[in-house]
């Protein structure tokens, strides 16, 4: 099972790599993102770049959006490009096919975010030398956890959405709307809370600190991801899957 999952993930990686090498479909835009997040933003924010709280918003967002494009392409894309049925005619289990795709997408998002973080660190250090702040280990691990868990959550959601979509385009459209709602929902909810509760929530979160919030959010995302993936695997059964 683990080996099969890895086999599928490996194939997805080969396909992603191919896109990169050819600068097809967003190959160039990815370089643009690297330039913006790895070089431009760190220079704008200055020597304290590594410790800005905003890191905890845009990095998970970036990881998730990378993960989401890959997941919908690899799940809905197999159907659209008519390779799904052949894949299903092999000895691979339903679960290893889905998990392999999830793993590939999560690792991709993760690798992308980490390499951008590293580029950012280097940029800040080259530009500001000793004045550049580094991130505390505590903060770094909290960020890593948040990146991983949010990518998993998004991948789980993406698989579920893409499973029924006939085309990648369809999957990505639906997925975009759902993601928007999912990210807005927590903010929206805090707005409608009574003032008193809102103050208490604010006090609790400031007690937790940004790291604490990151850990709690990670735990929630991870739990949701497990639920979503279980549902996706249940729904993805040979003989029930519409082969288009």
């Amino acid at each position: 099972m683990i080996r099969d999952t890895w086999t599928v993930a490996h194939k997805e990686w080969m396909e992603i790599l191919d896109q990169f090498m050819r600068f097809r479909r967003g190959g160039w835009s990815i370089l643009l993102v690297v330039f913006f997040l790895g070089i431009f933003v760190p220079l704008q924010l200055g020597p304290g770049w590594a410790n800005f709280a905003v890191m905890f918003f845009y990095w998970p967002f970036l990881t998730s959006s990378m993960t989401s494009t890959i997941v919908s392409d690899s799940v809905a894309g197999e159907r659209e490009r008519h390779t799904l049925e052949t894949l299903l005619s092999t000895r691979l289990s339903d679960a290893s096919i889905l998990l392999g795709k999830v793993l590939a997408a999560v690792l991709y998002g993760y690798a992308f975010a980490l390499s951008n973080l590293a580029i950012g660190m280097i940029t800040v250090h080259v530009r500001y030398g000793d004045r550049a702040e580094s991130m505390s280990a505590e903060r770094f691990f909290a960020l890593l956890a948040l990146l991983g868990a949010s990518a998993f959550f998004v991948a789980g959601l993406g698989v579920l959405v893409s499973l029924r979509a006939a085309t990648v385009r369809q999957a990505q459209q639906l997925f975009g709307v759902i993601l928007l709602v999912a990210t807005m929902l927590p903010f929206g909810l805090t707005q409608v809370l009574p003032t008193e509760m809102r103050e208490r929530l604010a006090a609790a979160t400031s007690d937790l600190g940004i790291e604490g919030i990151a850990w709690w959010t990670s735990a929630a995302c991870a739990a949701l991801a497990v639920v979503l993936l279980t549902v996706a695997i249940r729904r993805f059964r040979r003989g029930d899957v519409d082969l288009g």
Partner: protein
Amino acid sequence: MTGPAIRVHDLVRDFRNVRALDHVTMDVPPGIVFGFLGPNGAGKTTLIRVLLGLAKPTSGYVEVLGRNPAREGDAVRASTGALLEHHGLYERLSARQNLEFFARIWRMPRHTRDTRIHELLSRFGLWERREEVVGTWSRGMKQRLAVARAVLHRPPLVFLDEPTAGLDPVASASLREELARLASDEGVTVFLTTHNLAEAERLCALVGVVRRGMLTGFGTPDALRMGRHSGAILVTASAGVTDALIEALGMVEGVALATRAGGDLRIEVRNGVTTPDLVRWLAAQGVDIEEVRPERATFEEAFLSLVDPASGTTQ
């Protein structure tokens, strides 16, 4: 393995308002090339899907290599290879990467994997172009690669849905040779569908003919021709068949065409004229008749009568 490689019993498969398979029953013995023939939409692809556990029977049951694909699909798929309706290749990957992915799926050890991939790509004339991205290939090249992928792991049973579609005559001939060799030398059971009747007749030890989901013919290609005749009559004569006679015969009421055919006199008749009528007429013209027999239907004629009862041949 003893018993049939494939057993289909009273199989029905419905889609919303179409009955794709209608009470099909047949056994396919192991180690042969079996051809499943029928017009577009007859249910061929659907049967392959059911046999691989990719679609569930509405009723009835199937057994593949002694297992029920609806319940033990993983075990069935572990010992089969398939080329389905679409070639299913990853067009963004190279030929080698495609085969390597499937070799990993089948858990072939590294050295066997490399030699096998080399062997197959060479045999199908694709070795030189193995690093090219498959998306840029011609349809026939993709098709050949897809066949290579189906037999990569040496499965005892292969399903090939129209394997020669899009292949040039040389490539189809060599694929047929390859499939025949697989069955005779390696004991592989090959289940294929094709619209090429000459191919089916030459290659398949056994064929099934399906029409609107119903199995209307099953047997060796010879057996399907047997007992059906084309409507023409062959006359062997020791004397008296002259060009003038043939011309006169062509004018006879009820005779559509009279020609020489391999030393015989071949007469195509319309309805209304009987064989005794013709024999009497020929004898009266001084022809020494040795033998008179109905011409056997060609495989194509037999097929047409199985899928379209209104066509010319008679039982």
